[in-house]
C-alpha cells in the first residue's frame, strides 16, 4: 500500500492509534510498570510520527479540508464519520502529538500507583483530543469533546495532590455545564438548518445551509432587506444570539475566559504533572479552536453583535490574569493564571477579525501549548525532587541545577514573548491585528500591550525567587540536576521554542489559508459582509463513501391524527 492509498486512513490512524495502545495495555500485567510505560511511549511516539506525516502531507495551497474521510455512520440522523483537517487543526494535531511522548516521559518516575490505569487514561485523552481536532461532524466532535473530560477527571481525581477531589469535581462540572448547553445548541442548529429528511450534523452542510440566511441577516443589520428575510433568516435573527452564546459558553469555559476561569488554577494545582501539561498544552486550545471553527463561522452576525463583550472580556482576561499572577504564592497557580492571560491574547486575536490577528492567535495557541506545557513539565521535575509548590520554599536552585535553570529561563522568555522565541511572533501579530481592526476601540490593544510589562514582572519575579539568591534552605542544597531523560525532554522544548521563534513562517504558511477563510467567515457578520465572496467561505462537502443506497422511507406515523 503506498502513501497515496494510505492518506484517507491517516487521520483515523492518528485518532485511534492511542486507543489501540490503550487496548494493548489492558493485557499487560499491572506489575510490569516499565513495560506499561514503554508501550505507552511507543504508541505516543508512533502517533507523533503519524501526526507529523499529516502535517507534512497537508498542502497549504490545497483544499480547505484535507485528508478527508467521510463514511456512513448513522444515516437516519444525518451523522457521518467525517474527519478532515485544515491548517489550524493540523497544526494543533501536531502539537498534541508532540506533547504525547513528552507527557509520558515527564511522568516516568512521578507516578507509582496504578501505573497501568494512568497510562491508559493518558492514551484515552490523547485519542479524544485528536478526535476533537479532526472531527468535521458536530456529533462526532461533541462525542470526542466530552470524551476528553472523563480521563482528565480521573487523572486529576486519582493521581492529583491533596485537594484533588474538589478540583476534579469543579473541573468536571464547570466544563460539563458548558458543553451540555452546547449540545442543545448543536441540536437546535441541526433542526433549523435543513428540512426533515435532509438534516445533517455535518459541519460543512450546516455551514452552507446557514450561509445565505446569515448574509440576509447581515444585510438586515445594515437596514437592507429586512422585510424579505427568509424563514431561516428570521429564525436565526430570533435564536442566533442564543445559539451563539450557548456555543460560546462551552468554549469560553474551556478557554477559560474571565470570569469563568476559576476551575483552571485549582485543576492545575492539583493535577499531576501530566495532567497539567495536557490541560495547558492542548485542552485549553479546544476552547479557542471551538470559537474559530464553530461559534463564529456558524453565527457571524451574532458573533459580531457580541464582539465588544468578548473583546472586552479578552482584554480584561489579559490584564486580570497577569495581576492575579502577581498575587500568587504557588508556582503552579502562577503558571495557571499566566495561561488565563495568554489565552486572553488568543481570544483577542480571534475576535479582532483581521488576518494578522487571527494568524497571531493561531500561532499563539501553538506557542502557549509549547511554552506553558514546558513550564509545567519543567516545574514537574522540580516538584518531583522537593514536593512543594510554594515559591518561598525555593531559592538559589540555579546553583545546584544549572541546566534545569537554563531550560526554565529559556521557556520563561518564550512565555513573556521575548523576540527570537516563539511567543513574540504570536503576540506581535495579535496586537498588530487588533490595532488594525478598524471598528475596535484603540484602547483595547493598548491595554493588551501592557502584558509585555506585567508578564515580565510576574514571571521574572517567580524565577528570581525560585532560582536566584542564596540557598537558604538545606533541602535545596542537595537537589540534583536533570538526568538524561529529563534533559532530553527539556531540550525538545527549548529547540521548539527557538525554532518556532526564528523560523515561524513555515508554520504560519500552514495556518494562513485557514486564517483567510476564518476571517472571511467572520467578516460575513460585519458591515463588510457584502465584500465576502461565497466561494471564499463555502465549505466543500464530500459525498459519503460507501453509503448504502437510500433506504426505503420508513413507514411514516401510522395513526394520522385527523385535522
Amino acid at each position, binding site marked *: 500500500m503506498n502513501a497515496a492509498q494510505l492518506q484517507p486512513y491517516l487521520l483515523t490512524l492518528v485518532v485511534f492509534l492511542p486507543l489501540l495502545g490503550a487496548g494493548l495495555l489492558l493485557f499487560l500485567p499491572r506489575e510490569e510498570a516499565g513495560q506499561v510505560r514503554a508501550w505507552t511511549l511507543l504508541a505516543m511516539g508512533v502517533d507523533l510520527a503519524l501526526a507529523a506525516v499529516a502535517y507534512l502531507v497537508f498542502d497549504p495551497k490545497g483544499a480547505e479540508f484535507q485528508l478527508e474521510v467521510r463514511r456512513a455512520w448513522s444515516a437516519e440522523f444525518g451523522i457521518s464519520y467525517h474527519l478532515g483537517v485544515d491548517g489550524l487543526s493540523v497544526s494543533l494535531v501536531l502539537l498534541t502529538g508532540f506533547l504525547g511522548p513528552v507527557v509520558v516521559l515527564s511522568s516516568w518516575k512521578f507516578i507509582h500507583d496504578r501505573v497501568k490505569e494512568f497510562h491508559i487514561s493518558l492514551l484515552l485523552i490523547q485519542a479524544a483530543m485528536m478526535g476533537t481536532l479532526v472531527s468535521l461532524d458536530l456529533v462526532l466532535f461533541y462525542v470526542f469533546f466530552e470524551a476528553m473530560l472523563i480521563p482528565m477527571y480521573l487523572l486529576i481525581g486519582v493521581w492529583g495532590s491533596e485537594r484533588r477531589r474538589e478540583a476534579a469535581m469543579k473541573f468536571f*462540572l*464547570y466544563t460539563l455545564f458548558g458543553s451540555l448547553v452546547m449540545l442543545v445548541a448543536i441540536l437546535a442548529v441541526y433542526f433549523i438548518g435543513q428540512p426533515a429528511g435532509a438534516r445533517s450534523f455535518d459541519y460543512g452542510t450546516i455551514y452552507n445551509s446557514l450561509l445565505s440566511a446569515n448574509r440576509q441577516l447581515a444585510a438586515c443589520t445594515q437596514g437592507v432587506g429586512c422585510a424579505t428575510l427568509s424563514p431561516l433568516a428570521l429564525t436565526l435573527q430570533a435564536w442566533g444570539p442564543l445559539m451563539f452564546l450557548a456555543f460560546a459558553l462551552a468554549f469560553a469555559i474551556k478557554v477559560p475566559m474571565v470570569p469563568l476561569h476559576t476551575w483552571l488554577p485549582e485543576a492545575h494545582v492539583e493535577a499531576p504533572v501530566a495532567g497539567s501539561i495536557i490541560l495547558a498544552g492542548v485542552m485549553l486550545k479546544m476552547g479557542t479552536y471551538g470559537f474559530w471553527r464553530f461559534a463564529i463561522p456558524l453565527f457571524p452576525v451574532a458573533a459580531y453583535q457580541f464582539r465588544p463583550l468578548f473583546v472586552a472580556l479578552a482584554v480584561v482576561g489579559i490584564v486580570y490574569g497577569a495581576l492575579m499572577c502577581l498575587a500568587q504564592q504557588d508556582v503552579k497557580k502562577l503558571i495557571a493564571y499566566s495561561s488565563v492571560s495568554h489565552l486572553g491574547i488568543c481570544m483577542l486575536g480571534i475576535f479582532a477579525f483581521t*488576518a494578522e490577528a487571527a494568524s497571531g492567535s493561531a500561532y499563539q495557541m501553538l506557542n502557549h501549548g509549547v511554552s506553558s506545557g514546558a513550564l509545567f513539565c519543567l516545574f514537574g521535575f522540580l516538584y518531583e525532587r522537593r514536593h512543594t509548590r510554594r515559591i518561598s520554599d525555593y531559592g538559589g536552585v540555579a546553583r545546584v541545577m544549572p541546566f534545569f535553570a537554563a531550560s526554565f529561563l529559556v521557556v520563561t522568555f518564550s512565555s513573556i514573548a521575548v523576540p527570537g522565541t516563539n511567543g513574540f*511572533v504570536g503576540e506581535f501579530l495579535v496586537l*498588530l491585528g487588533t490595532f488594525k481592526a*478598524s471598528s475596535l476601540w484603540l484602547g483595547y490593544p493598548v491595554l493588551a500591550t501592557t502584558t509585555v510589562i506585567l508578564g*515580565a514582572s510576574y514571571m521574572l519575579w517567580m524565577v528570581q525567587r525560585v532560582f536566584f539568591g542564596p540557598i537558604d534552605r538545606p533541602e535545596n542544597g542537595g537537589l540534583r540536576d536533570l538526568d538524561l531523560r529529563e534533559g532530553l525532554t527539556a531540550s525538545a522544548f527549548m529547540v521548539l521554542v527557538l525554532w518556532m521563534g526564528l523560523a515561524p513562517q513555515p508554520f504560519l504558511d500552514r495556518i494562513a489559508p485557514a486564517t483567510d477563510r476564518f476571517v472571511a467567515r467572520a467578516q460575513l457578520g460585519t458591515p463588510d459582509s457584502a465584500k465576502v465572496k461565497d466561494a471564499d467561505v463555502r465549505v466543500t462537502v464530500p459525498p459519503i463513501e460507501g453509503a448504502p443506497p437510500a433506504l426505503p422511507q420508513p413507514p411514516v406515523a401510522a395513526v394520522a391524527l385527523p385535522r
Partner: protein
Amino acid sequence: MDTTWLTKAWANPQALSANLWLIIALPAFGALVCGVFGRALGRTYVNLVACASVLASFCLSVFAFQAVAADPSVIVTPAANGVPMRFALSGDWGVWFQAGSFSAHLGLWVDHLSATMLMVVTGVGFLIHLYSTAYMEHDAGYWRFFAYLNLFMASMLTLVLADNLVLLFVGWEGVGLCSYLLIGFWYTDAANAWAGRKAFIANRVGDCAFLLAMMLLVLTVTAFAKAPGTEPPAVFFAQRRAVWTHAATSEPGPLNFKVLEEFAQYMPANLAMGSRGMLGTDIPIGPLAGHTYGHTLTLVFLLMLLGAAGKSAQLPLYVWLPDAMAGPTPVSALIHAATMVTAGVYLLCRMAPLLVMSPAAMATVAVVGALTALYAALIAFAQDDLKKVLAYSTISQLGYMFLGVGVGFFWGAILHLVTHACFKGCLFLSAGSVMHGNDNEVNIKKLGGLRKEMPWTTACFGIATLAITGIIPLSGFFSKDDILHGALHARLVGYEWVGPTVFAIGSLGALCTAFYMSRAYLLAFTGERSKDAKVPHAHESGWVIVAPLVILAALSIALISHGFPGLLKMPNGEPETLMEAFLKPVFGVADRLAIEAHSLLPEAERSPWPGFGIALLLAWAGGGAAWYLYKRVFPARAGKPAPEVFAAVRAFTVHKFYVDELYDAVLVRPIKLLSIGLFRVVDEGLIDTVLVGGTAWVTARIGSLLRYLQTGDVQAYAAMMAVGLLAGVGYAIFEALAK
C-alpha cells in the same frame, strides 16, 4: 604615496552582502559553544572561542565598514534633488514572518550609520572580551559569562544590522535579556538578581511603548499605501535603494527602514516630486482615520522616545542603570556604557527622516535629554561608589546624545556616541582594573593614592576623565560641545525656545560633569592611600587588562579628528566636520526633509569657536572647583561636622532624590496591592465563593429537600409513573381535540 587602496573596497561588496549574517552568527555560535560545552572545554578554550568569534566578527565589520565608507561607487548623486543618495550593503534572507498584509523580513544592511555602530560594537566589544579573560580569571562561572557576553554581541549586532524595525526589536530585547542575565550574573546574592530584574522591567516599560509606536507606524504607513490616490503600493513598497543587494525577494513590509524613508519623502508640504503635503492631511482609511499624519507621527515618536528612554536610561526610566552596576565591571563597560544603552540614540537617529516631521516630538527629545544630562550629573555629585559615579555620568552623557538628536544634530549625537563609547569604556575598564587591584573596593573614599601604585590605570583614567570633562585636545570636548553648539543654533519651528534652553541646561550639566569627574579622579587616584583601604598596597593589573585601557585611551584622543570643525569644505564653501561629511548620506535626507517640512531650520553657520571658549571655561571651572574643595577645603576641615544644610542636601542627593522610593510608592506597591486585593476579593471571594460555591450550595439545598420524595416504596414510584402516563395521555387527547 599611493592611496588608491583606501578608496576601493577591500572585499567584494557583493560577497560581503551575501555574508553579512556571519557577523551575527559568529558570536551567536560562540555563545552556543561556550554555553553548552563551556564547562567541558575548560577556561582556555572558552576564552579562545569567545574572543575569536568576536574578533572574526570585527574583521568582517572592518571590511563592511571599509566597503561602505571608501568605495567611490557608493555615493551617487541623483539628479532629482541633489542630495547624495545613500547606499548600503544589504542582504535579505526572505520572509521572517508574514500574515495578512504585514510582513517582516530577515534583512540586514550596512549603511554609513550602521557601519559606524558596527565598528564601535565589535571594536569595543572585542577589547572588552579580551579584558574579561583576565578579569574573570578566578570566577568559576567564566563559561556562562562568555556565553552571555557573546550572546549579547550577537543581539547587539542584530540591532545594528537590522534593516527593519521588527528585526531591530529582536536585537533590542535580546540585549535587554543579556543585560538581565549579566547584571544578575552573581545571582547567589539576591540583590544582584533583583537589579537584573529591575533593569528588565524598566526596559520592558519602554519596550511596551516601542511596540505601540511600531503598531501605530504600521497603521500609518499601510493606510498611506492603501489610500485611494496613492502611487501603486507595489511600487511604493518595492522601491529599493541599495546597490548591492543579496536576494531581494518580496516586498519588504511596512517597517523596513527604506520603506519608512520613502514614506517620509511624501510627507512634507512643498515636496518637489509630488506636491502633496501630507502632514496636515487626515489619514483617509483604517483605524486612525480622521487623525492627521502629523499628529500621528508625533504620537509615534513620543512613544518611541519612551522606548528609547527605557533602553538608554533617560528620564523617567533611568532608575535601572545605577543598580545595573551590580554586574561584573566588563559588563558595565560594554553593555551599560559603550553599546547597549546607546541603542536608543541609534534608534532615533535611524528614524531621523520621519522624526524631523514632528517638531513637538523633537523638542520633547531635546528637553528630556537636557534634563537627564543635568539631573544625573547632580546625583553623581554625592556618590561614593566609583561605578555608580560612572553610571550616572553615563546617563548624563546619554542625555547629551538625546539632546543632540532632539535639536536635529544627528551626526553630533552619533559622534558623541562613538567618543563616549571609547572614553566611558576606558573609564569603566579602569575602574575594573582598580577593583582588580584593590580587592573589589569601589568606594572612592577608601581608595586614594593609586597614582603611584597603578600608573597605567591612573594615566588612562586621567585621559578619559579629561575627555569626558571636555578639555580641549580630546575627543569629548568636540563631540559634546558640537552638540551644545548645534543646540544653540537650532530652530525648531514652533519651539524656538528649546534650543537656547537646552543649551543652558546642557552647559550647566557640563560644569557639573567636570566637577564630579574630577572629584572621582582626585579622591581615588591622588593623595594618600586611605586608612580604610582593604589592602594596604594596590598592584597594577596585567597587560591583558591594561592593553585595552591604553587602546581606548588612545582612541579617545585620536577621535578628535572626526569632531574638529572645518577639516573639510562643503561644495558651497562652508566648513564641514569629518563626521558630518561621513554621515551625510544618511542624515542628508533628514536635513532636507526637515527643511521641506518646515520643521527645523538651520541658522546661518556661525563660528563655533566662541562657544567652544565658554565650554572650555566651564570645564576648567568645574575641575578647579573640585580641586579646590577636595584638595583644599575638606582636608582642612577634616574632623569637623559639615553644616546642616549641606548635610541635608547631601543626604537628599545620596538617596538619588528619592525617585526609587517614589516609584515604589506610586507604581509598584499599588499594583501589587491591587493584584492581591483583586485575587482575594474578586477571584476567591466573588467568583469562586459566591458564584461558583453559591451555585453548588443552592443545588445541594434543593437536592436535600427533594430527597424526601424518595420513599423507597416501589408502588409509590409506580404511582408516580402512572400519573405521568395519565398526563401524557391527557395531553395527547387535549392536543388532538384542540386541532
